[in-house]
């Protein structure tokens, strides 16, 4: 059957649900983007509310780390970073604000590109600044290992790497949130395994599905959750992305990740500290830690816990319910990271949202 026809059937079936309210959290920012970009958001019935989740690594990177990157740039270094990181502001400035000062800033596509930069300019210090979750961490770990193997001591890493389960525990523990279902990040699960998210159903009794990112994947996930929520039997968990996600995930990638990183407490922008929620360089690789190399203590910068975005990424409000959305906060003059990051919920809603049709 043609995919578009199948999606239409799925959406029709979702519309048949008689449940008054279905609150489903799309954990991952890439899912939020995909839902909007595919137009699926415009097809959903009013009783199905898609809540944004904390799965936007740029949005949850503590301001102090961005401030640290800006501070490090005061040295005559080369900064390599992903495009996602460039526009988000720390306390005052972003990486893109440094461009007019003719600082050496390179947007790269792969963490391994920073190795080439370091080899190309052995006389210069190169700092790779990035955020990510479990999907990206193995690639960064590989870059660190290779830097070590190839003695690239002019290269260092400034990272904000976070783990999904601790922040989900933190959200799901607050039962009054009334989340009925979770769309789990398919590519995190590709690395960590489908079993990584089983606790959502097992411990919290919330229906959950690991989903891919194509329109059909997302529609199928929504249908599965709608049906299971409506059935009011025991909470169900399904891996709907079996082509990419095994129960046990990718052991090779995880091994490399844990050879380089330790688990530590993490600071989440707008949320605060969450125990054992971050990955930091372990003692074998701490010589590649940019904070140590440049002697910067991120807590020297004020850490602001009053970001407006936290209510959005915790699923407390919809982006358009934020009083700043579309008025004082737009992609051109963003007030917070959720509007700056291309997969921040507010950015996805602003760029793709069809409220104007209503």
């Amino acid at each position, binding site marked *: 059957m043609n995919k578009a026809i199948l999606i239409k059937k799925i959406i029709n079936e979702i519309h048949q649900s008689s449940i008054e309210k279905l609150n489903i959290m799309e954990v991952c920012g890439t899912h939020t983007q995909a839902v909007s970009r595919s137009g699926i958001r415009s097809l959903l019935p009013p009783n199905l509310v898609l809540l944004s989740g904390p799965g936007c690594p740029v949005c949850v990177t503590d301001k102090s780390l961005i401030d640290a990157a800006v501070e490090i740039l005061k040295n005559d270094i080369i900064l390599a970073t992903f495009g996602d990181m460039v526009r988000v502001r720390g306390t005052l400035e972003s990486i893109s604000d440094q461009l007019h000062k003719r600082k050496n800033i390179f947007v790269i596509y792969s963490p*391994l590109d920073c190795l080439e930069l370091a080899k190309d300019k052995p006389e210069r210090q190169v700092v790779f600044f990035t955020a990510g979750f479990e999907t*990206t961490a*193995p*690639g960064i770990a*590989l870059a660190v290992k290779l830097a070590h193997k190839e003695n690239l001591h002019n290269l260092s890493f400034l990272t904000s790497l976070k783990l999904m389960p601790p922040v989900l525990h933190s959200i799901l523990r607050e039962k009054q949130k009334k989340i009925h279902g979770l769309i789990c990040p398919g590519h995190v699960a590709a690395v960590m395994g489908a079993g990584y998210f089983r606790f959502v159903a097992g411990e919290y009794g919330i229906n959950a599905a690991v989903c891919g990112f194509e329109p059909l994947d997302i529609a199928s996930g929504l249908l599965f959750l709608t*049906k299971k929520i409506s059935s009011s039997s025991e909470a169900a968990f399904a891996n709907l992305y079996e*082509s990419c996600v095994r129960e046990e995930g*990718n052991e090779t990638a995880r091994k490399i990740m844990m050879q380089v990183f330790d688990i530590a407490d993490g600071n989440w922008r707008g949320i605060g500290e969450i125990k054992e929620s971050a990955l930091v360089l372990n003692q074998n690789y701490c010589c590649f830690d940019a904070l140590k190399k440049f002697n910067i203590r991120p807590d020297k910068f004020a850490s602001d816990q009053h970001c407006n975005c936290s209510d959005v990424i915790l699923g407390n409000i919809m982006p358009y319910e934020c009083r700043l959305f579309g008025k004082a906060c737009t992609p051109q003059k963003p007030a917070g990271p959720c509007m700056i990051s291309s997969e921040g919920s507010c950015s996805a809603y602003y760029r793709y949202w069809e409220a104007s049709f209503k």
Partner: protein
Amino acid sequence: MCLAVPGIIVSIDRAWAQVDVIGVLNTVNIQLIDEPAVGDCVLIHAGCAIQKISSDNFSFLSSILSEFLIGAEKNE
């Protein structure tokens, strides 16, 4: 938080592979997956293959969906 695309390994040179992504040959690191081989379909994120893809998710989903859509024709 994870843009990733599927591709097919066309050739391998130690830690790197040429991977065909919808007709575009992309250079991808293959050190994060186990025993990569020419012909394997892999998931690529930030220039690294992060998992092997076993099949087309469409065929897998069709069987799951048939359970939920049996009654669908009645509702049309």
